């Protein structure tokens, strides 16, 4: 009778092995995976966005028709769906700075362009932002820069926010710089910035302090005119 037990055991083992072999060859699989129906392909792939008409955009911005056309062609070429999400934005911006890591600064830029904070930039946002930067008055440009620095959009630039921005700018330089970027360089730069901007020494920079100081600084005023004829 011991032999019969052995037999049964052997039978059991062989049957299990056999099923394992069959599963290996893919014959038994449909039985086990019958439940998962693959409906993951049912997701709709693209969300498309069409911009507003050319006339409306012309009214909202200071670009001519031809400029808007040329801008849209470039925009659509990179983003056929009409929307730029943050990842695409970061990858595009990083291509201009091959030596460093531009992703953090691109993140801040993205938030500055994405006016309605929905996670994607439409062509309208893009063009409106560009219009301010290239054709706006000095005050508008300074306003835009303040908006960029003010990460949480509360109307005040704190030292932490400025430090984050400064670090992201230094990140864009990359490793191979002369002289080497020391770890204290961003914070020293931030201190200098606050020394210049923070009039009442309250630790934050408000929009008025910012605009006032910038308008008094010749270098900054000159550099604001720099990108006039970009398009």
């Amino acid at each position, binding site marked *: 009778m011991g032999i019969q037990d052995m037999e049964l055991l052997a039978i059991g083992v062989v049957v299990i092995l056999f099923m394992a072999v069959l599963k290996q060859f893919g014959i038994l699989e449909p039985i086990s995976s019958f439940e998962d129906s693959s409906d993951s392909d049912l997701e709709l792939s693209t969300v498309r966005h069409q911009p507003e008409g050319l006339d409306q955009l012309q009214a909202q911005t200071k670009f001519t028709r031809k400029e808007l056309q040329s801008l849209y062609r470039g925009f659509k070429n990179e983003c056929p769906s009409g929307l730029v999400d943050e990842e695409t934005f970061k990858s595009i911006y990083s291509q*201009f700075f*091959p030596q460093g890591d531009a992703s953090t*600064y691109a993140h801040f830029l993205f938030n500055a362009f994405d006016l309605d904070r929905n996670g994607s930039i439409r062509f309208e946002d893009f063009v409106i932002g560009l219009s301010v930067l290239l054709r706006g008055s000095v005050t508008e440009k300074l306003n835009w820069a303040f908006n960029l620095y003010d990460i949480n959009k509360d109307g005040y630039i704190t030292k932490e926010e400025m430090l984050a921005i400064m670090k992201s*700018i230094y990140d864009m330089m990359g490793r191979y710089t002369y*002289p080497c970027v020391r770890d204290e360089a961003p914070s020293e730069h931030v201190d200098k910035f606050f020394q210049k901007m923070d009039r009442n020494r309250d630790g934050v920079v408000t929009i008025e302090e910012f605009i006032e100081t910038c308008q008094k600084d010749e270098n900054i005023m000159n550099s*604001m005119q720099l990108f006039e004829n970009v398009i």
Partner: protein
Amino acid sequence: MAAGVAAWLPFARAAAIGWMPVANLPMPVAPTEKNKRQDEVIILNVSGRRFQTWRNTLDRYPDTLLGSSEKEFFYNEETKEYFFDRDPDVFRSVLNFYRTGKLHYPRYECISSYDEELAFFGIVPEIIGDCCYEEYKDRKRENAERLMDDQEDNKDAKLPNMTFRETMWRAFENPHTSTMALVFYYVTGFFIAVSVITNVVETVPCGSAPNQKEVPCGERYTVAFFCMDTACVMIFTVEYLMRLFAAPNRYRFMRSVMSIIDVVAILPYYIGLVMTDNEDVSGAFVTLRVFRVFRIFKFSRHSQGLRILGYTLKSCASELGFLLFSLTMAIIIFATVMFYAEKGSSSSKFTSIPASFWYTIVTMTTLGYGDMVPKTIAGKIFGSICSLSGVLVIALPVPVIVSNFSRIYHQNQRADKRRAQKVQKARLARIRLSKAGSSSAFLHSKRNGLFNEALELTQLPYKMSLSEQSSTKEEQHLGKSSSLLESQHHHLLHCLEKTTNHEFVDEQYYQQSYLEGGLQNYPPRSPSLSSQDGVTGTCCSRRSKKHNTPLRNASAPAHMQPLTHPQTHHHGLQELSTIHIQPLSTSRSSLNMRIDEPAPLNCQSSQITTAIISIPTPPVTTPEGDAHLPTGPSHQNVVKVSAL
């Protein structure tokens, strides 16, 4: 910078306004667009078919024919279009490359015509997208093989001035080159056959005298067989020695498979000669005679198919290994099961598990000799499962081996893979180089741009008078060498440098200066740039002792020693290595890189870099000066003049 995002450059430049309030230094001057023109549609007439595209689209790749001023040669004034007398179908792919940034290879196109078109338009085939690259490479390899085969057929014409040894080797390798070789080929083939047949017939029982038992022919006609054997072995020995003599690389020949087979085929005879009378080793001697059958492998020199079979088996080692492994696994399992199943039955042949191995093997390979059969019901059930699974296990790896054989029969696989790996590495290196080219291009033109600034900023009188002459030349040269897009991009990077008060440098320079760290302190800057602060240069230092000497020698530019000798030589080597990767062709051959600058690899280039260092006014550039790849010859002239 990928050409596709060139359209976003205005955006990136506009976003640079974010750096302005933080910057402490004044920003550099923006490049002006000298002939600013609206983007227009240009017409490309290719053999009558008109293609239209924006001018900006073509300007994305300034290294190609359509992106550079070379297309002006094809401009037709009357019809105001560019006329190219080329294939319009292939031109579609070329133009799509400009539009999308990806080059595709159409499958219906002939590989050589496609290559010609690409070469005409100055596009490097290596940038074919991954989707089409495999196909392109395969077709190219087939084409190359075909060409090689054609060449080999022509090569068989007798080359003059071959030594006797070379002639002999060629005769051995290609029997149809001369009649003597052919004769030799057939004679050896005949003797191999004779030898093999002799070995076989030796063991056949010949007719015998009625009173004696049957003896094999070998023992009956000992002398005859011995003579036959001797003759064959002598022929084989002579052949082997002749091959050994003729082989170009004797050591390699001796290690080759065929030569080992030759040796193994003739050795038993000689060993047998040596120890005929020793009784103890006669058993071993008999075993050695088995090796005589290896003579049959000598036929593989005469048969291409046999060689391929051997090669296939070698290359299918993994499939064969899998077959063996799975078989072994199955044999052990089933043998165990059968043993235990049949243990109960009386007079069972399944005495032990190893004894059951024989049954399992015979059943799984569906031989079924019938010398061992299960008697119990359980045994019969498992026996049938065993034979069914045997069919499965054996049938599966066999088609793989078969397909391997057929594939190898049609092409020589292994050598091509090795060649392809080299090409693949080169391709990736080139693509990587072009991506790195954008940053090095910036460092290039930074030096050019700053050089221009230096000429403007300087106030030394003699430089003034000379700079007026040279700066116009300089400007012309600069205007020619960098496109507007590039100059704008470089201006952007320059703004970033000014914002953070640090500069982009070459990786190599960075590493070298980092390694040298702590040599000397940063020398004081000139007053015109004293507004820069916060630069102490602690972690990396300049080799300023090298910089001080050029200032002394500023009066002798023509004979300036290359003071930064090790580094520039290193750079020279670096350039050599980078250019080595690229084929030595025209400036078109790189994607976006400016090859006209690093092209002149002469010793004078090292002098150029030190000459730049000698300009005292912008010390900012001086550490960069020797970090960059040298400039073109026209720069050389300018440098010499102004460094007086």
